[in-house]
């Protein structure tokens, strides 16, 4: 921590990433900068080597005609050479444009065309082929360079060259002609804080993806703040496994690494990430909630096969952790005996577990992107993993808010990150000013204008509020947040998430905007409820039958009631407790257009399709009939019709959480 | 030069000079060979039927004999002791099938080979634990076997044949004949032969593999018992015989693991060979070469005819 501060102090002048790289090549020349599991071992490059390679690539790109203001696309998975190409482009004051490796040709065309990309750096044959297939639709694309030459050895295209060859050639050139080196240095010095450092395309959930332009100076500044915030140093190791084109990867594995001088390791390939994580043992880690969720499931499944005794021990100590783990992590006061008990657990369970998962060395881990279940969140924290949440956006260059060590809660995303100013607009929208905030959407001034307020705040489009201790809570996309007739804020996603944290509930759709009260339609999770049914020897022939079963209803009703209880705890939400619910006779399905391909519920569409049910929910009837079209596994269409029961719930008093049937 | 003479000329001159001695030697070699052959026979039975290289065959012989003698010494009348001994061999067969063969079925041969080592040790231990380790005398007369010797005046010399040896030879021949009949004529016998070829075939005959194994091991046990009695009658019964029993192995190399006639011919070759060697060539090197001559012969054989006298040539396919 200390020496990272010194760093940022000493090198306050570096306002672009190439300058930072040059600084590291000087200050910690022989510290490892990049690793890549390749050919069975972790090939490692020191800062000096990286600097030299980047310079070589820069020279090569320069020869290919890349100059200030040009765009260089980076297409592929996390590979040192791609990160270096990215930096090389910046060295030439060109703007790198990372693209999702799994993007299909058309998306690629949209982005590359929109950005007028001049040169593309591709990972391997697959990406090169993809690019070649669309080359004719990209008038500006002049040249393609690639990393892995397997399968590409005997491609004959003229405007195609291997990065290795480029590096080799340029290295020679740089060696022979000092002038070349000098001109590169001049280029680096010429780099200015307001250069467009990078262009990140936001995934197109809302309309076509737009290129978010971030400036060098702001990016570096933002990174400095968070590096200091988490005390990252050049001793830190991190595993770069997130998509290059995602702001998170660019921030954590590029910007922060280049500021802190920490070491970035690239996994062998997508399937070996878990293993590589275990080998590297990162000290700083990021993963979206679903990753943690999937992992927890795997942990539990694997423990199922363990011997009875071992399982008992595991459960026992997990219990201990639940009780004390977070307290200890938060540095609260804990009885000595409990500490000892926990220490024993650390030796027998938590330690080994973290070791097997590769978490042993993690000092700070973040999760973000979606709401994370409290259970899930505290499970990892209770093991002693310093897992925190952050709330961020591409437009902010990631950080808007972040948990500080010791003050972590699953239901908030933390207080504003350093030097970030947040305000809640009257309509409940979260707006911020951050050091790293974006300059503009590339070639889309009107969209930029929409997103920026006159006084320079960025609209997040998310609704949220600060709770008592100044931590931000995100409710939902602002446009989805509505009001009940009585004026209470109605945030469907917020309620739906609370419901979905119950393993038995797969999907939830909440209604209530401009109504008297809140109602929800639920999907049960077939596997979970199915098991439950078996244990309670409830026989069922179909999803529909199970979903309609009385006992299932009773169980779900208990869940919903719990949600109401927790809502009751929150002054602003108490009014939005769930009054009535029903369980849908069919699973919501993207094939039927009820979900987006990213598995988000399409509320409006559902409201129309299940109109009779919605009506039933509000006209007080106990049952409603529905007949709707479904698409079966094999794609056949059919209709299922059924009679759905609707359940009323008594709401909890705002303050005291007294339960009622 | 002198050495060459001693090796290649002198012995044969001796033979010529004293044919009676030669005959005597041949006879003893023959009898020894017959007994080797019997041990090898039991071995071949098992190998054919269960593909097990039964290292314990020799020990089974000693164990059987020891049981017989041991019981007799404990006051059990000889005939009854004999029956009991047979019974024990049956139990042994059952045990082996249960404890060794069944769990190890489909394991590589080497495993089963090693397993018979374990069996060997258990038998040695058990035998001594029950009946004591000290050498015992075979109640020849009580078993109704002849004693004494017949002296033949032939070739201007005297050749004395131990009656017991004659008996041994006869019993051995009977046994071999019996087995031959058993294999050729009886249903089980045919089944056994089938097993040798492939296990499925055996099942088709309507006998479970396990039964067959028990039968085979039991048969081998009886052979072992007979052999044991013979050996016991010639020398004392003790686990020192174990070393003699190992002589069955070179016999097998000569005869091949799967051939009954091979076992017999091999036995005779080894028996006679080592006696002649010991008697006529042994003195050159200080005697006692019996202990290894058999193996040397076998080894020499291996190098020139690895598949043995009657074993079929193996073509390696890949």
């Amino acid at each position, binding site marked *: 921590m200390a020496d990272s501060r010194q760093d940022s102090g000493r090198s306050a002048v570096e306002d672009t990433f190439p300058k930072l790289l040059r600084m590291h090549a000087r200050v910690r020349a022989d510290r490892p900068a990049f690793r890549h599991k390749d050919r069975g071992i972790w090939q490692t490059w020191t800062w000096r080597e990286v600097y030299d390679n980047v310079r070589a690539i820069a020279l090569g790109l320069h020869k290919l005609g890349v100059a200030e203001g040009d765009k260089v696309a980076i297409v592929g998975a996390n590979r040192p050479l791609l990160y270096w190409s990215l930096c090389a482009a910046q060295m030439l004051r060109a703007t790198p444009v990372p693209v999702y490796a799994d993007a299909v040709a058309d998306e690629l065309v949209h982005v590359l065309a929109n950005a007028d990309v001049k040169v593309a750096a591709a990972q391997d044959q697959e990406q090169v082929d993809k690019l070649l297939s669309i080359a004719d639709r990209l008038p500006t694309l002049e040249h393609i360079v690639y990393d892995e030459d397997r399968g590409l050895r005997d491609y004959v295209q003229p405007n195609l060259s291997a990065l290795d060859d480029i590096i080799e050639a340029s290295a020679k050139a740089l060696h022979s002609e000092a002038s070349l080196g000098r001109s590169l240095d001049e280029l680096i010095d010429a780099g200015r804080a307001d250069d467009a450092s990078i262009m990140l395309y936001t995934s197109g959930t809302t309309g076509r993806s737009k290129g978010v332009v971030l400036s060098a100076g702001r990016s570096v500044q933002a990174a400095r703040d968070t590096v200091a915030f988490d005390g990252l140093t050049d001793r830190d190791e991190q595993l770069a496994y997130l998509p290059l084109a995602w702001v998170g990867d660019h921030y954590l594995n590029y910007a922060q690494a280049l500021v802190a001088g920490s070491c970035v390791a690239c996994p062998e390939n997508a399937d070996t990430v878990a293993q590589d994580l275990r080998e590297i*043992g990162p000290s700083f880690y990021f993963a979206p909630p679903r990753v943690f969720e999937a992992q927890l499931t795997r942990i539990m499944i694997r423990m199922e096969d363990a011997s009875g005794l071992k399982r008992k021990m595991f459960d026992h100590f997990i219990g201990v952790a639940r009780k004390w783990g977070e307290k200890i992590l938060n540095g609260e006061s804990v009885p000595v005996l409990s500490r000892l008990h926990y220490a024993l657990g650390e030796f027998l369970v938590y330690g080994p577990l973290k070791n097997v998962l590769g978490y042993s060395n993690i000092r700070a881990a973040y999760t973000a992107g979606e709401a994370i279940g409290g259970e899930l969140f505290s499970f990892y924290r209770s093991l002693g993993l310093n897992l925190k949440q952050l709330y961020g956006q591409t437009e902010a260059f990631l950080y808007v808010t972040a948990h500080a060590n010791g003050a972590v809660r699953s239901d908030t995303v933390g207080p504003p990150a350093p030097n970030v100013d947040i305000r809640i607009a009257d309509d409940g929208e979260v707006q911020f000013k951050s050091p790293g905030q974006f300059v503009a959407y590339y070639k889309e001034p009107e969209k930029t204008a929409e997103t920026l307020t006159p006084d320079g705040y960025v609209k997040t489009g998310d609704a949220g509020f600060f709770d008592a201790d100044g931590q931000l809570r995100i409710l939902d996309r602002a446009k989805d947040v509505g009001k009940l007739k009585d004026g209470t804020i109605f945030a469907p996603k917020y309620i739906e998430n609370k419901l979905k944290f119950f393993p038995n509930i797969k999907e939830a759709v909440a209604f209530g905007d401009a109504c008297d009260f809140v109602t929800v339609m639920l999907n049960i999770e077939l596997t979970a409820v199915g098991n439950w049914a078996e244990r309670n020897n409830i026989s069922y022939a179909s999803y529909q039958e199970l979903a309609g079963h009385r006992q299932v209803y009773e169980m779900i009703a208990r869940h919903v009631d719990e949600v109401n209880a927790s809502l009751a705890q929150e002054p602003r939400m108490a009014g939005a407790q769930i009054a009535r619910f029903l369980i849908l006779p069919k699973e919501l399905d993207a094939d039927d257009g009820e979900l987006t391909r990213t598995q988000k519920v399409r509320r409006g569409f559902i409201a129309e399709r299940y109109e009779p049910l919605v009506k039933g929910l509000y006209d007080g009837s106990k049952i409603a009939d529905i007949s709707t079209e479904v698409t079966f596994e094999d794609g056949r269409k059919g209709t299922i019709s059924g009679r759905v029961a609707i359940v009323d719930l008594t709401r909890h008093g705002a303050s005291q959480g007294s339960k009622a049937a | 030069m002198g050495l060459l003479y001693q090796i290649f000329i002198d012995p044969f001159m001796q033979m010529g000079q004293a044919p009676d001695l030669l005959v005597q030697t041949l006879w003893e070699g023959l009898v020894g060979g017959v007994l080797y052959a019997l041990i090898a026979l039991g071995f071949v039975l098992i190998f054919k039927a269960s593909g097990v290289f039964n290292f314990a065959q020799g020990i089974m012989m000693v164990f059987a004999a020891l049981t017989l003698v041991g019981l007799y010494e404990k006051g059990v009348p000889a005939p009854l002791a004999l029956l009991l001994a047979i019974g024990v061999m049956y139990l042994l067969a059952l045990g082996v099938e249960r404890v060794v063969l069944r769990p190890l079925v489909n394991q590589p041969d080497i495993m089963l080979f090693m397993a018979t080592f374990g069996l060997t040790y258990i038998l040695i231990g058990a035998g001594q634990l029950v009946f004591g380790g000290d050498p015992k005398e075979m109640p020849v007369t009580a078993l109704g076997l002849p004693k004494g010797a017949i002296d033949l005046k032939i070739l201007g010399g005297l050749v004395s044949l131990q009656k017991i040896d004659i008996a041994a030879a006869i019993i051995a021949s009977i046994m071999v004949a019996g087995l031959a009949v058993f294999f050729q004529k009886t249903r089980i016998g045919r089944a056994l032969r089938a097993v040798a070829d492939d296990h499925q075939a055996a099942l088709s005959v309507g006998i479970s593999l396990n039964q067959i194994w028990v039968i085979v091991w039991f048969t081998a046990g009886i052979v072992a018992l007979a052999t044991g009695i013979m050996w016991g009658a010639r020398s004392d019964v003790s686990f020192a015989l174990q070393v003699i029993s190992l002589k069955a192995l070179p016999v097998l190399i000569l005869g091949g693991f799967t051939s009954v006639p091979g076992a017999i011919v091999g036995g005779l070759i080894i028996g006679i060979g080592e006696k002649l060697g010991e008697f006529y060539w042994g003195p050159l090197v200080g005697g006692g070469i019996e202990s290894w001559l058999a193996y040397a012969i076998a080894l020499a054989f291996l190098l020139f005819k690895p598949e043995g006298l009657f074993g079929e040539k193996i073509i390696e396919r890949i």
Partner: protein
Amino acid sequence: MFYREVGQFKTSYAADQAIFPIRQDRIGLALILAVAFIGIPLIGGEFMIASVMIPFLVLALAAIGLNILIGYTGLISLGTGAFMGVGAYACYKLSTLFPQVNIIVWIISSGLVSCAVGVLFGLPSLRIKGFYLAIATLAAQFFLQWCFVRVGWLYNNNPSGAIEVPLHTLFGIPITGATAKPLTRYYVVLTIVVVMTWFASNLVHGRIGRNWMAVRDMDIAAQLMGIRLLPAKLLAFAVSSFYAGVAGALMVFLWLGAAEPEAFNINESFVLLFMVIIGGLGSLIGSFLGAALIHILPIIVRTTPGALGLSIGSATAEHLTYIITGGLILFFLIVEPHGLARLWQIAKQKLRVWPFPY
């Protein structure tokens, strides 16, 4: 659960190819060595050192030799005892012919003698395989045994027919003969065994070991890889009998002090075979575990009844040992054909993935 492998990543092939790539294993090895060199001499009494440790080490060394042959190259040998004998007698002859030369030199060279004999008897292994080869090695066993008895020159025509070890010193300290202290002998044996084990492990982990295993697993394919069977097999025989020879020399010179031909009879060969089977074919650790079990077992059988108050004759104890040994062999073949070594591996694996079962 003691394994904490996070962050133990390899940045060079040298590190990745290391025989003990995991730090915890290296630590464990260091501990074992520490115990052997410091702990046992401190706590172990006369009996412990002279009658447990020295024999154990000697037998383990012989077992390693045999394991190289059977476990790594797949050649069965029933003649190990005899090859130990060759080592012993060679060492006796050499050291009595040239008493002035340091005994350690002779111990090593006697290994070479046995090595030569081993190659000689290994020659048939080209033509013959499996059981046939096993029997062929019996020829070696009995022939050599016969030599030990009949060739008076080997034991300097000592009327007793036995060989007695004269006094030899190392740096002025007696290490063989009556006056040699157990502890000194222990250190000599231990050092030799450790060094030779290290060599063995290097061999089996390198090119040579791979060729051996290739021959063992699929000799046809091995040939088509360009591996010549005869040299590979003969090398295995050579190394194997070298180890046996040295072990034999150690056995007589630093353990028993004197020996008769009987010491190297067929049973010795069998016992070693069992050590290798029970310990685990194709595993050096297994050789040690097997040696420990088979050697210490009789001691336990002999001592426990006394401890339990009931007295059994040494004969009975011996017989029991036979039965138990035999039983163990069956048990391992049936339950865990890969022997103690595999159990060890499984345990290790469990610890590595702890708390998960796999």
